[in-house]
């Protein structure tokens, strides 16, 4: 199986590669169009800011390439948000794979919630083979200030300020808001499940 991680200006790509190595799979990190198109599975990672990342992708025509992929694709964190329609983060048009708007968390005064959300939160209402054998309410590691609301593509829900999509799915595209590469055993199971899809 040929697995690629899309290389672009949003880190931390190395952690994803190491996490895959821990479950016994070597991944190639590349921004080469032909190699990405020829891969069996594609991982679209990301930590960073939406508009800068989208600009980088557009300049290299990776935006069109990613949206047109037919093999299973897994977006992680910012990667998932970029797969949505639009992000409030610097008013950025994204890849429109998921028809969702990405919005800033707005906690009510006095509820003690911080933005960004940093730490371990639970995932529930788990659907699709991505979460096979992953127990309901497993803890995963999140670091994000923006979120995608729940909708028709939601395959996992997390509660912070309000319920929101901690994972999305449409056709061959999957996205997770948490970092499976940093989510201990649950994260490793989810990555292994993706590799089996």
């Amino acid at each position, binding site marked *: 199986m040929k697995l690629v991680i899309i290389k672009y200006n949003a880190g931390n790509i190395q952690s994803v590669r190491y996490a895959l190595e*821990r479950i016994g799979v070597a991944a190639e990190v590349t921004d080469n169009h032909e190699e990405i198109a020829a891969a069996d599975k594609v991982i679209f990672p990301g930590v*960073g800011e939406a508009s800068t990342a989208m600009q980088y992708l557009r300049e290299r025509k990776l935006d069109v390439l990613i949206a047109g992929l037919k093999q299973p694709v897994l977006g992680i964190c910012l990667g998932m948000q970029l797969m949505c329609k639009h992000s409030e983060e610097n008013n950025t048009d994204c890849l429109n794979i998921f028809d969702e708007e990405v919005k800033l968390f707005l906690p009510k005064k006095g509820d003690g919630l911080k933005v960004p959300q940093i*730490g371990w939160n639970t995932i529930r209402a788990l659907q699709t083979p991505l979460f096979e054998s992953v127990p309901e309410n497993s*803890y995963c*590691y999140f*670091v*994000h200030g923006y979120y995608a609301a729940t909708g028709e593509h939601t395959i996992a829900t997390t509660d*912070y300020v309000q319920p929101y999509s901690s994972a999305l799915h449409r056709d061959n595209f999957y996205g997770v808001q948490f970092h499976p590469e*940093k989510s201990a055993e649950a994260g*490793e199971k989810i990555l292994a499940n993706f590799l089996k899809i």
Partner: protein
Amino acid sequence: MLAKRIIPCLDIKDGRTVKGVNFENIRDAGDPVELGALYAKTGADELVFLDITATNEKRKTLSELVSRISQHINIPFTVGGGISSVEDVQVLLQHGADKISVNTAAYKNPQLIADLSKEFGSQCVVLAIDTKQEADGQWYVYLNGGRVKTDTLCMDWAKRAVELGAGEILLTSMNHDGTKQGFALDITATLSETLSVPVIASGGGGTMQHFTDVFTKGKADAALAASIFHFKEIAIPELKEYLAGQGVRVRK
């Protein structure tokens, strides 16, 4: 719901763990990767590696170490100690660090925080503050590992750092550090309730009750400790059972 985090801190010198550790079930107590992996396995939520290596040359050892940690450990980790430039951070993140912490260099050059958060995102910029309550009752910022006093109030510096882009505050009370008499609840709560970003409390944790207190009364988002974990005075699984029993939400 978001869980409160328990964070063991490992002091590193020339790529090895310093300060004693007392674990029978690992081969080499000096290897930070092995110790870190053991903590990850027993339920630590994050790790902090604090590099106390003095020379720049030996910094290479650090990036190699960060790479090994990232290869072997499946929870997030922060690297701190002597970080003073965007280039320093670039190297550490490229080797797999999730966050970096800055302290004295950021105080002397606050623009560093803005530069780092712009370049890498505020989620990976942790501002460490060493603070001490003086006879006047105020909490002041100290630099250089607590050796140099400033006239700046802890709250003023923390607020400014968050405005500049710090994504978390790691707050160490010098009055409490090493005492095992409990965390500094007042200043922790004041910071946590005032700032929009998470606060990690450090210094003084000696009993499991101290951790309950820092999460409930101190309003901390995370608690950090070193020797009580290294010397197995408190085991993380028991601590988490205890906290859950006290109504504190933790990941088990």
